[in-house]
């Protein structure tokens, strides 16, 4: 084959520029640590990277949601446990005072103590979280959920109770806040969704926590009949206080508490235990979702790494190889330049 002088140049230049291009590519991959730096590096991989990144970010957001939900539930749990302790103490007082060794005066003093404890309980029932939302008000978070019973002085009722008259808020009976802690298969939340495994409930309506079938308070129909006393823990305590103070002489001679009211308070403690257990289950769900999410994320991270990141060892090996090839090409180019017959003419 005839070889023209230009061919030495073009061949030399082409191989040098080819090696330089490769080195540039390896340089970018090694310096960013990624082999996919833009969609064109791996169009199909890009779609997967996007999807993986999105899933991982979403899992992160769900675990953030879980943390928030958990903090709210801890608040609720602490409040309820606190109330349990108070109620336990009240029950002890009640049982103690049913003993004949105490006289009406001592019982009246005990009733004052209970009155103080009731203030604490009332505070818990109308407790707010750090954002100023009432904790036990379902979604009606801006109205005080427990108010003075307009029909029965001294007793309290939930504003979802029709007997609240002007303050009656039916919406306080339903709904609750659901926080998403996992992937929702149909990505939809219905009003007061009863079964949505991807979400956890973080608020409860007061009646779910504090309502008991209090026999000592008289009949409690559903829906409440006009003028009935609401069967809740606070009202049971009020009844006990009244009996100790001798304000309910018909049922409790000498201010001795009736067995009915003591039973009601025991029921109250049990109801609260149930609520604590329910909250515990929710927290376990958050925990296990979090763990599942983290495990899932680990495998996703690994997959994304395989698609996106450079194998450094391979990168460096390639780099050295290309570098040698480039140096070789450059040397050959300079050597070939010296090869001319004209050098020997004289």
């Amino acid at each position, binding site marked *: 084959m005839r070889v023209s002088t230009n061919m030495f140049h073009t061949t030399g230049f082409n191989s040098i520029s080819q090696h330089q291009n490769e080195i540039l590519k390896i340089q970018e991959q090694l310096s960013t640590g990624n082999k996919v730096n*833009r*969609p064109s590096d791996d*169009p199909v991989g890009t779609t997967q990277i996007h999807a993986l990144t999105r899933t991982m970010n979403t899992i992160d957001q769900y675990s953030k949601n879980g943390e928030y939900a958990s903090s709210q539930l801890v608040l609720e749990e602490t409040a309820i446990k606190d109330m349990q302790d108070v109620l336990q103490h009240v029950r002890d007082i009640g049982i103690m005072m049913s003993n004949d060794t105490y006289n009406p005066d001592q019982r009246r003093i005990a009733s004052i103590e209970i009155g103080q404890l009731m203030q604490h309980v009332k505070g818990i029932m109308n407790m707010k979280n750090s954002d100023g939302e009432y904790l036990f008000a379902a*979604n009606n978070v801006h109205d005080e959920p427990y108010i003075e019973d307009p029909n029965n002085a001294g007793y309290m009722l939930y504003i979802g109770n029709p007997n609240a008259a002007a303050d009656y808020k039916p919406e306080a009976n339903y709904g609750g806040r659901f926080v998403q802690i996992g992937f929702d298969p149909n990505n939809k939340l219905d009003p007061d969704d009863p079964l949505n495994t991807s979400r956890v409930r973080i608020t409860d309506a007061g009646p779910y926590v504090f309502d008991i079938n209090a026999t000592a308070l008289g009949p409690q129909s559903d829906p409440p009949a006009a003028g009935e006393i609401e069967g809740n823990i606070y009202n049971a305590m009020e009844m006990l206080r009244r009996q100790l103070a001798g304000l309910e002489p018909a049922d409790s001679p000498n201010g001795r508490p009736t067995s009915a009211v003591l039973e009601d308070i025991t029921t109250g403690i049990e109801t609260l235990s149930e609520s604590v257990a329910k909250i515990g289950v929710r927290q376990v769900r958050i925990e296990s979702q979090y763990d599942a999410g983290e495990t899932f994320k680990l495998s996703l991270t690994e997959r994304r790494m395989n698609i996106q990141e450079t194998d450094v060892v391979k990168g460096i090996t390639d780099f050295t190889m290309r570098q040698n090839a480039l140096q070789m090409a450059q040397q050959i180019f300079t050597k070939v330049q010296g090869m001319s017959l004209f050098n020997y003419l004289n």
Partner: protein
Amino acid sequence: MDMLGIAASASATFKKALEVTSHNVANSATPGYSRQRAEISSMNPVIAGNSVLGGGSQVNTVERIYADYIQKQLVSTNSGVKGYEQATMFAKQVEGVVASNDQGINEFMQKYFDSLQNLSNNPTSGVNRQLVLDQANSLTGHVGNVSQALKDTNYQLNAQIEGVTKEINKHLLSIKTYNETVAKASAQGIQPPNDLLDKREQAVLELSNLVGIKVFNQADGTIDIHSANAKVPLLSDNILTNLRAAPSPYPDENRTELYIDISGEKRLVSDYLIGGGELGGILDARKNVFDRAQNELGVTLNGLVASNNWQHYMGYDENGDAGTSLFTPLESKGLRHERNSMGGGEVMVTFNPVTPSGINDLLNGENTPYGTSGQPATFGDKKADLDAAFTSIDQLSAANYEMYYDGTDWTVTNLTTKAEATFAAGPGNFVQFEGLRFEPTGAHVSGDRFVIKPHQDIMAQFETRISDGQQLATRGQSPIETATGNPVTDASAPEPAAIGDNVNIANMASMESKKILFANASGEPSETLLGGYSKMAAGVGMYVRGTEVNFEAQTQAFNYINERRETLSGVSLDEEATNLMRFQQAYQAAAQIMQTSQTLFQTLLGVVRG
């Protein structure tokens, strides 16, 4: 022929040969130069009696070592190389703007949805409400930047097309001049005008850098030049057809197209020129990457705006009022054709599904479908409206549209798939096509034509409509009928849930993972919003990848053909060195013959003188 005569012819021959060699050496680095060779032959013999005597040597012609078929291949592969190179460069620019891996639109979209999740955790928090608006504004701001960058890219593209067109015309003119000279030289000369032909070939090769061409040789030595697909004549019978870069027939489109004038008629030829050369490359990238990426990104944005707005309409804000448009709804105005009547009629494309409830105050310029007309009769009706909106969203298609009025009917055409919808003209008439509502307004005359780009327009229009966090509709439908106390059913009247409710905002946050775009054959949406973005990014990546691979393949082909050309036509300095020695020796020998002839003559004279 005597000895002296032979020596004289030989010295002239080798002098000529040495000149050709010098010319080759002188042009060894001239681009497009084909090496030349002196064709040496013996002169006609002298017949003297019955003996034949040689008559010396002569240079018949100076031959140009050249193969037409190699040169033609070189021209076509060269325009391929330049075409793919330009397409890759331009597509990479678009890739950088719309499809970066980090801190791109997907990142901002993700943050927006995260902020919705946060608000859903605590819907009464003013801070969380503000955060949603801030993230929405970051997203719209970023899209605004992208949109501006794309607009600038469009200007740059128009300028580049105009510049390249000027260059093409300049090259065509110089080829035309070479043609004339070549024709003249061929008509009178004995020897072909070698160097002139080389220069013309070089001009053709340079033209192929700019546009894909096909060259046809003519009998008179001139060449004709057509576009690579032979559909656009550029130089025919040495008559020049100038390419003209001018605005498209839709004056407001701001898009430069290419035209030629054939017998006084202006013809649009942009699509014929797609392919080779700088011009072909950028036209290809404009059509297959720039337009497509914008439309695909636009579908994602339209999907985001429509889905978030309609879910937002379902809910109630902090004050219990119906949710209003969170993002500014799409309002895409048709671009007038330059030959349209001046009646002032317009066409408008919006996202307004036909609501089953029949209520849609958005059409009356209100900010929510449930404004003056109030809420639909039941919660079920309202849900049906939302479903209708989602059915429209999943039909959105990444395309531009044309609307044409023939005097009685309007025809809407998807300019990518050519799918059509027709509806009768009349006040208030419209058609719901591929998820969008096409509606003419004002007076129109038969023949009016508009082009509409709803998915490109949304990029420029994308902004947050709500400025007060209280207006975010976090609350959903009340879980009970407040009037009766019964749990809600589809027959219940729409009414807001309590203030702490997060159902609506949770549903908006869920939109991130929900497949809402691009319905498949069975009507099921196949992509999430971020998936729609990914699809666009992958499309751009795929194009860049494809043109890169093609560029490399074409470069290989070009190098191979260029090597063949060099093997045949390239100057080898070593070869010229040997020729130099050879011809020099022969020249010296011829001179020696003259010397010998002289000596012989002197000897003879000496004998005569005695």
